[in-house]
């Protein structure tokens, strides 16, 4: 292909996106589930004030569940699909073509970013129409950067985790076993100051807390500035760096098989 490499990246992402949108499981976990949780949690809390910022439940849960949607669209989907593609020979077959490795890997990341941005916008739109949630206009750049950075970070972490999962069957339970407890202690499902201090400390070590917290701050109507929370973005970047090292050192195109 004589076109620019970036066009090849977009080409790859286009078909990855098409494949992902047609996957019922991906649609459910990335789009339907966060919306369902929004309705349930706002219902449970009666849209009273919650959380450290003392905002309405809806204003609390739109950013929190945006974090959930980003993680589903990036990390969860990626681990499940990459493990399955490795096992079913799809990755190896792509490897047998002239397409550069970074296009295959980057195309998947680009797909996740697009999905994250779209799902975040849907959550915001629903929150706004149904519950009157307002995103401070000044925060939009920060929110946008946080969504993109969060999505990219969780993609890299997904690639890193996929190197440790032996079979496609193990992918779904593994990602859920990692993410469900983190959602609970990181302020995605329950406002996190209600938790004992040691659990809060545990949460602070992991990236979920920092993605949720960065989004919570940006959505806080009392917040000022452009919505960037540098400490949280820094933690995400640190996790991304660790994930990148693991992924680059261990990534495999085919299951490691015995020689024949």
């Amino acid at each position, binding site marked *: *292909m004589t076109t620019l490499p970036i066009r090849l990246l977009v080409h*790859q992402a286009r*078909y990855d996106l098409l494949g992902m949108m047609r996957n019922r499981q991906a649609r459910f976990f990335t789009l339907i589930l966060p919306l369902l949780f929004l309705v349930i949690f706002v219902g449970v809390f009666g849209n009273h004030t919650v959380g450290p910022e003392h905002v309405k439940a809806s204003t609390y849960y739109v950013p929190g569940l945006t974090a959930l949607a980003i993680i589903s669209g990036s990390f969860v989907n990626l681990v499940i699909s990459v493990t399955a593609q490795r096992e079913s*020979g799809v990755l190896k*077959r792509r490897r*047998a*073509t*002239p*397409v550069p490795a970074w296009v295959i890997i980057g195309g998947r990341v680009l797909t996740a970013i697009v999905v994250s941005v779209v799902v975040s916008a849907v959550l915001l739109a629903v929150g706004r129409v149904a519950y009157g949630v307002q995103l401070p206009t000044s925060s939009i750049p920060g929110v946008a950067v946080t969504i993109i950075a969060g999505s990219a970070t969780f993609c890299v972490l997904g690639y890193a985790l996929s190197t440790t999962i032996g079979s496609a069957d193990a992918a779904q339970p593994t990602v859920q076993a990692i993410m469900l407890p983190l959602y609970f202690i990181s302020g995605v499902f329950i406002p996190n100051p209600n938790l004992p201090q040691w659990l809060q400390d545990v949460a602070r070590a992991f990236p979920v807390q920092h993605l949720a917290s960065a989004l919570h701050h940006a959505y806080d109507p009392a917040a000022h500035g452009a919505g960037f929370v540098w400490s949280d973005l820094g933690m995400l970047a640190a996790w991304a760096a660790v994930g990148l090292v693991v992924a680059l050192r261990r990534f495999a195109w085919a299951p490691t098989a015995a020689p024949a």
Partner: protein
Amino acid sequence: MTTSETLSPAPIPTAQPAGGAEPVIAVRGLRKRYADLEAVCGVDLEVHRGEIFAFLGPNGAGKTTVVEILEGFRERSEGEVTVLGADPARAGGAWRDRVGVVLQESSPEPGLTVRECLELYAGYYRAPRPIDETIALVGLTGKADTAGEALSGGQRRRLDVALALVGDPELIFLDEPTTGFDPSARRTAWDVVAGLRDLGKTVFLTTHYMDEAERLADRIAVIVAGEIVACGTPATLGGRDRMAARIRFTPPAGAGPLPAALAPLAETGAGGAVTLASEAPLAHVGTLADWAFRGGFDLPDLDVRRPTLEEVYLALTTSDRKDRS
């Protein structure tokens, strides 16, 4: 080793002069060692432009290892390997642009239709083939808008072949392309592979089916325990053309002793059936006919057969490889 240049019907223009054409695949002294095992012990191979070359061997004989080294998926321990003028272990995108690979097992691209799978792959190549034409080539035109994952096993395999062809490669690796097919799907797949020869492609085929090799291949190599034990055309592999034919018949009761010329060749089996291992089947059948005619009896189950490729293969892969050619 005889070349099959006279057999390949589709001469295609190359930079090389026809006589001294460089082989598409040249392997010399290839060895692959794993920790405690030498899987490939000194393999030499040459595959010429435009031929269908079948690579046979029992499981665990080193077949997959050799194929994966040729495809650039595995490093070798020793030896020279040249595929399309380059070392596959170091070749990059420009080389991959000229090579198509059909893996032993690979699923369709998740969520995409047949046409979309091909569109995705066409985007990887410098000068792809037209998509609808490629779909037609493998006989999937009616399934172009069907999800790849909804295809039958045979159709998926044909999609795999289409994906390997869409870049218009010069050389195609087909790893057990018809395993698990029903007989009619196998015949369709054979037509597709034979069609590749008409396009002037070079095909490197591995298979477990002797009828497949016999039907498709210009030349066959057999690997056993990491070594090539025979290489030749389907008709001459392992000295098949020089091997004894088998003449079988059941003499009626009271037929008397066999003619003296045939007695030393005979073996009597169950139900009194006699089998002759014959190097001169025409003369021996003549002698038999004479014998029966004079005795006034018939030999209604008389059967004369050349060794099948399968018998040659089994002899090569089970006995102590005596017949190297």
